[in-house]
């Protein structure tokens, strides 16, 4: 198996902040998870979100993570985590196995994002997906001014060695969820700014697409 980071694919570094609380954007996701839910976190990294969910929302959590290091850290935290790949392993989970399936900052690193999304909606009654927004103004500006593939603090890879092979903008992702064979219904959408905080709910899509650094979406089967 080739080593490829998943949750940390966007270069987010550690998932915990000083003080033991998870990153702001992970807390935004956690707030979307009902108490006591059965949760699968695909690309769960070092397990910080799962542990936070177990602690703060009493969920019964499971994870999938590609990297050996991540799996070891998860197991040491007492989490049930399988070393595996979202592209190949989701097929083995039965329908409706979980209340919520989370895919945080991982979709852009999968080989078949659409298939992965369909699996999320099959395995979970709800899917929470967060994607880095390639339409973010800093990225647009870099591309416009330098004429080169953008490299930012959160997306620190060169084009030739990035694990992120399927970038999209917030708007692109929303369009994907509308495809008939995906069969998703958007229950909630939140755009996060560079600080990981939720932006104004009243802002129009174009605003999120330009100023949101990532989008967080709650989807359910149509």
């Amino acid at each position, binding site marked *: *198996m080739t080593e490829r980071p998943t949750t940390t694919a966007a270069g987010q570094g550690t998932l915990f902040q000083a003080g033991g609380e998870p990153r702001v954007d992970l807390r935004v996701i956690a707030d979307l998870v009902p108490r006591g839910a059965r949760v699968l976190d695909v690309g769960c990294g070092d397990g910080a979100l799962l542990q936070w969910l177990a602690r703060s929302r009493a969920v019964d959590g*499971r994870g999938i993570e590609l990297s*050996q290091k991540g*799996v*070891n*850290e*998860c*197991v*040491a*935290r*007492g*989490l*049930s*985590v*399988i*070393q*595996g790949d979202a592209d190949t*392993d989701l097929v*083995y*989970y*039965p329908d409706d*196995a979980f209340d919520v399936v989370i895919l945080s900052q991982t979709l852009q690193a999968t080989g078949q994002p659409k298939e992965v999304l369909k699996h999320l909606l099959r395995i979970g009654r709800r899917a929470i997906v967060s994607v880095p927004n390639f339409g973010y103004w800093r990225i647009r500006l870099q591309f416009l001014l330098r004429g080169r593939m953008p490299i930012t603090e959160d997306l620190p890879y060169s084009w030739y060695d990035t694990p992120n092979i399927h970038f999209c903008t917030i708007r692109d992702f929303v369009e994907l969820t509308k495809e008939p064979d995906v069969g998703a219904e958007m229950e909630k959408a939140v755009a996060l700014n560079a600080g990981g905080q939720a932006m104004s709910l009243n802002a129009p899509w174009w605003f999120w697409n330009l100023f949101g650094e990532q989008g967080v979406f709650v989807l359910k089967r149509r």
Partner: protein
Amino acid sequence: MVVRFGADQPLPLDSGHSLGPWQIAYQTYGRLNADKSNAILVCHALTGDQHVHNIHPVTGKSGWWDLVIGPGLPIDTDRYFVICANVLGGCMGTTGPASVNPATGKPYGLDLPVVTIGDMVRSQAALIDHLGIDTLFLVMGGSMGGMQVLQWAAAYPERVFAAAPIAAGARHSSQNIAFHEVGRQAIMADPDWHGGRYLDAGTSPRKGLAVARMAAHITYMSEASLHSKFGRRLQGRDRLTFGFDADFQIESYLRHQGLSFVDRFDANSYLYVTRAMDYFDIAAEHGGKLAEAFRGTRTRFCIVSFTSDWLFPTAESRAVVHALNAAGASVSFAEIVTDRGHDAFLLDEPELFGILRGFIDSAARARGLA
């Protein structure tokens, strides 16, 4: 230590026969706590035995899992009570083909009914009952030991709090059965085998058993590890002899492995334990659906495979993981990158120790043992 069960306490076998009187030999380490909640059963591999953490009485070598078991190690003998028993059909004190058949007063030989992994686990359960332990905190083992772990979890789910099968699978593959058959045929082709009655004849099929061990030993390593260890280097000479002496170091190594094995292992036992592995197929016992074997289980699983293991490749472990997922079980899985092949579970693999430590420590917290 040995527990003897009389003719009034026969052990029922999967073959339909029953065995009685019978006995099981075991070793323990550490101390059982007051509520008997800290017991760990360690299951040994094909040619291993109960001497998991003490000097072996025959070979004088240290315990086969001294890297895993001991004070401060992943299985901490200061915290846990560790039990390891010799398998049914074995040759280190548990009833096997070299034991005396009460019906004839002579060694069983091939008159011992064929035993299965299920029978081995049933005999271990009898031992655990005898020790007064209701629920095992952890059942753990590699290779054939891993098969026993899975069997424990499938047959006695309420008695297994946590389970760690390493480098194992829920069935023995066709290729693995093929290798075992080569070994058995080597033993049975040895004229000293005498149709299995060599103990009566005062002989021992040493050559056949050594060949069986040599063939098996190759499957425990990987091409890469053999190459880095031996390459094509010559043994004690600087040119080829153009004969059939052990010119190459690998030949000499295998001959040594074969010869040292016959000093500690019984040839008929080898037939029985390899057969037990061959017959193992948990899914077959559950209508072909492996997930059914684990339906509703509350056991916490940690499954580990090794990238260069071609005896139990990662796919075998993944099949178990997928079945456990389908059954909604709590399961962790890691594939450890190593070039040391199947035997990696017996060697110094820090990644393995790290994941075992994490799993056992967190299970202990969940069990209230921390």
